[in-house]
C-alpha cells in the first residue's frame, strides 16, 4: 500500500492521462459541433441576404405625362362620372406620347413602335395614371411628372437576373427594348432605388411582380397576433394557474397535464384542418379571415404558453407561498400578490416565443384559405382587419415562391428577410425581458 501511494505529483498516471485525453476529445467534438452549426447559420444568412435584398429595390421610369383633355375629358366639363368612363385603355396613348416626348427630349432615335415603348413600363402604369386623374381631375390639361414602375424584365435586367441571352424566347421583352433601356439608364430616366412599396404595399397579380408588396400580408399577420395574444395569454395563464396552484392532484388532472404536453407536439396542419372543420364549416366564420387564422394559431400557441407558464410558476419557491399563507393570505392572494409577479417574466418570455412560432406558421393558414392573391388594399378598420380576407407573411412568401416568374422568387426571399427581422426582434425582446426581470430569492 505504501508503494502505490508514493507516486510523484509531477508525473501523470496512465489513468489521469486517459482521462485528460477523453476530456480533450470531448471538447473537440463540442467545438466541431458549434462550428458546423455556425457555418450553416452563415450559409443561411448570406444566402437569404444575397437573394432577398434585391426585393427592396425596384426600377422606376420617370416621365412627364401630358394629361390631354381631348383624351380624358372630351366634353371639357370635368365631370367625374364622365372622366371615369375612360378606361385604362384610354390612357395608353398618353403614356406612349410621354415616352416619345422623353426620347425626343434627350435625343434618342429609335424606330420602335409605341407599343414596344410602353412595354418598358409596368402594366400597372396606366392604372396608376387613371387613379391619379380620377382623384385630381383639376390637373387635366397640365403636364405632370410621374414615377412609373418598370416592368419586371427591365427590373431584372438592371439587377442582372435578365440578360440578352436569357430572353431569346421571351415574348415580354426584346433585345431592342433592352438597348433602349441601356440608353434611358444612361440618361437617368430609368433608375433603380429603394422601394418602400415592397414593405408597405399589397400583393399584385401574376403579371405584375414588380408591384407586389408584403405590407397587407403583414397587417394580416398582425391582426392574427392580436387575436392570439388576446385569447391565448389570458386563457393559457388562467389554465396554468388553476392547474398548478388550485387543482387537486389526481388522475384527471394528470390526464389533462399529459394531454396538454401532447397538444404541443401536434403538427400544425392538424390544427389547420380542425379550424377549417370547426370555425369555417361549422361556425360559418368567413374564409380567409385573420380572425379564423388567429383562432387556429391560438389553439397552437396555448400549449406553449401553458407549459412555459406552469414551468415559471413551478420555479417560484414554495417558501414564498408558505410565507404568504403564514401571514393569513388566502390562496388566491398568495398567487396573485406573490407568485404571479415572480413568474411574470417567464410567462412573458413564453408568450413571446409562442407568438413568434405562430407568426412563422404557414401550414394551417393554407387550409383556411389565407393564401393566394387575396387582398389588394390594406384593411381600413380593425374589424375589417379581422374579418376581411387577407393573407399572412409566411403564406404570402409561400405564394410567391410558388409562382412561375423568377421576379416573384426574389420577393419571396425579401419577404423571408422581413419575417426573420420580426422573429429575431421578438426573440431578442424575450431574452431582454428575461435578463431584465430575472430575480434571485
Amino acid at each position, binding site marked *: 500500500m505504501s508503494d502505490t501511494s508514493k507516486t510523484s505529483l509531477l508525473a501523470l498516471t496512465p489513468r489521469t492521462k486517459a482521462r485528460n485525453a477523453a476530456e480533450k476529445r470531448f471538447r473537440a467534438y463540442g467545438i466541431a459541433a458549434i462550428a458546423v452549426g455556425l457555418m450553416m447559420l452563415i450559409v443561411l444568412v448570406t444566402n437569404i441576404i444575397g437573394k432577398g435584398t434585391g426585393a427592396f429595390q425596384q426600377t422606376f421610369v420617370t416621365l412627364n405625362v401630358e394629361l390631354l383633355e381631348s383624351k380624358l375629358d372630351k366634353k371639357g366639363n370635368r365631370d367625374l362620372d364622365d372622366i371615369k368612363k375612360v378606361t385604362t385603355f384610354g390612357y395608353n396613348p398618353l403614356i406612349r406620347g410621354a415616352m416619345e416626348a422623353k426620347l425626343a427630349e434627350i435625343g434618342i432615335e429609335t424606330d420602335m413602335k409605341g407599343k414596344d415603348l410602353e412595354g418598358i413600363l409596368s402594366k400597372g402604369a396606366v392604372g396608376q395614371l387613371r387613379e391619379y386623374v380620377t382623384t385630381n381631375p383639376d390637373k387635366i390639361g397640365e403636364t405632370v411628372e410621374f414615377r412609373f414602375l418598370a416592368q419586371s424584365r427591365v427590373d431584372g435586367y438592371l439587377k442582372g437576373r435578365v440578360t440578352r441571352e436569357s430572353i431569346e424566347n421571351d415574348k415580354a421583352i426584346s433585345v431592342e427594348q433592352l438597348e433602349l433601356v441601356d440608353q434611358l439608364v444612361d440618361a437617368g430616366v430609368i433608375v433603380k432605388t429603394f422601394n418602400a412599396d415592397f414593405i408597405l404595399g399589397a400583393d399584385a397579380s401574376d403579371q405584375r411582380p414588380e408591384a407586389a408588396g408584403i405590407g397587407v400580408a403583414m397587417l394580416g399577420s398582425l391582426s392574427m397576433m392580436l387575436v392570439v395574444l388576446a385569447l391565448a395569454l389570458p386563457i393559457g395563464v388562467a389554465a396554468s394557474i388553476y392547474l398548478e396552484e388550485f387543482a387537486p392532484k389526481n388522475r384527471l388532472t394528470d390526464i389533462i397535464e399529459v394531454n396538454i404536453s401532447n397538444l404541443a407536439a401536434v403538427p400544425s396542419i392538424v390544427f389547420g384542418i380542425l379550424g377549417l372543420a370547426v370555425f369555417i364549416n361549422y361556425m360559418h366564420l368567413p374564409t380567409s379571415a385573420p380572425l379564423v387564422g388567429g383562432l387556429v394559431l391560438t389553439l397552437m400557441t396555448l400549449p406553449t404558453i401553458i407549459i412555459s407558464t406552469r414551468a415559471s410558476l413551478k420555479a417560484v419557491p414554495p417558501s414564498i407561498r408558505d410565507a404568504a399563507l403564514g401571514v393569513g*393570505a388566502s390562496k388566491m392572494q398568495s398567487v396573485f400578490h406573490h407568485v404571479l409577479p415572480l413568474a411574470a417574466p417567464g410567462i412573458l418570455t413564453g408568450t413571446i416565443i409562442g407568438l413568434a412560432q405562430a407568426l412563422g406558421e404557414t401550414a394551417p393558414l393554407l387550409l383556411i384559405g389565407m393564401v393566394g392573391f387575396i387582398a389588394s388594399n390594406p384593411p381600413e378598420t380593425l374589424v375589417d382587419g379581422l374579418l376581411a380576407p387577407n393573407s399572412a407573411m409566411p403564406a404570402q412568401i409561400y405564394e410567391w415562391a410558388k409562382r412561375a416568374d423568377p421576379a416573384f422568387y426574389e420577393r419571396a426571399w425579401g419577404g423571408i428577410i422581413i419575417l426573420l427581422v420580426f422573429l429575431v426582434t421578438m426573440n431578442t425582446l424575450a431574452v431582454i425581458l428575461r435578463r431584465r426581470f430575472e430575480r434571485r430569492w
Partner: protein
Amino acid sequence: MNDMQFTDRAVEQKETKIAAKDVNVHYGEAHAIKDVNVEIEDKTVTAFIGPSGCGKSTFLRCLNRMNDTIDVCSVTGNILLDGEDIYDKRVDPVQLRAKVGMVFQKPNPFPKSIYDNVAYGPRIHGLAKSKAELDEIVESALRRGAIWEEVKDRLDKPGTGLSGGQQQRLCIARAVATEPEVLLMDEPCSALDPIATAQVEELIDELRERYSVVIVTHSMQQAARVSQKTAFFHLGTLVEFGHTGQIFTNPEDPRTEAYITGRIG
C-alpha cells in the same frame, strides 16, 4: 414531593390557549402523528423537541392548518383554539392563520421591500386605516423583531438583500405585525449565528408577554433557555409534556432521558 410539585404547578397554571385531543396525522399511508394530546397555555413559550423526523413540524403545522396545502396529508382528532375546533367545517383557514402566525425554518421574506414585507399582513387584513397608521404598525413590528435599528434607513430596499439572521428577524416582525394570538416557530434559529440567535431568543421571551409561542428546536439549550413548557416527541407520539425544568432535570420517561442526554436522536 408530589404535593410540592402540585402546588408549584397550580401557581403557574395559565389559561389553555390550544388544546389538542387525539390528533392523528397521515401522509397518505404513513402515520406521522399518533394520538397526540396536549394543552398549550396562553402567554407561555412551549418548546417541541425530539429527534429528526419525529413529527414536530407536522404537528406544528396542524396548529394553523398549514397542512391543508399538502394534498396527501389528513388530520383527525380535535384541535381547539380558545375552545373552538379549528378543523370545523365552518372555519376558514385563512382567518385562523391571521390568529395563529408562523415563522418558518428557512427565512422566507417576500422579494419586495422591507416595508412591504411587514405591511403586507396588516394590509390584507385591513388593520390600518391610513398610511400613518400602517407606518406605525410597521415600525413597532420591526422594533419587536429587534431589527428596526438596522433597517430603519432602508425600508424601501428589498428584504431579500438582508443577511440570513436579519431576514429571519424580518420574518418574525412580519408575523407579529398581524397581531396573532399564537406564534408558531419552526426552528427559527437554525440558520442563525449565536448573536442573532440570542437576539431572537430575547425576542421570544418578550413575545411571551402577549402571545402564546410554540417553538420547535433541536437545541436542548435553547429549549431550556426560552421555554416554560416542553413537549418531547418520538416516532410520532408525544412521549412527555411538562414544565421545562422538570423535563430537563427529572424526566419521567426513559426515552426522554435518553434523548436529552444524547443517547437517541
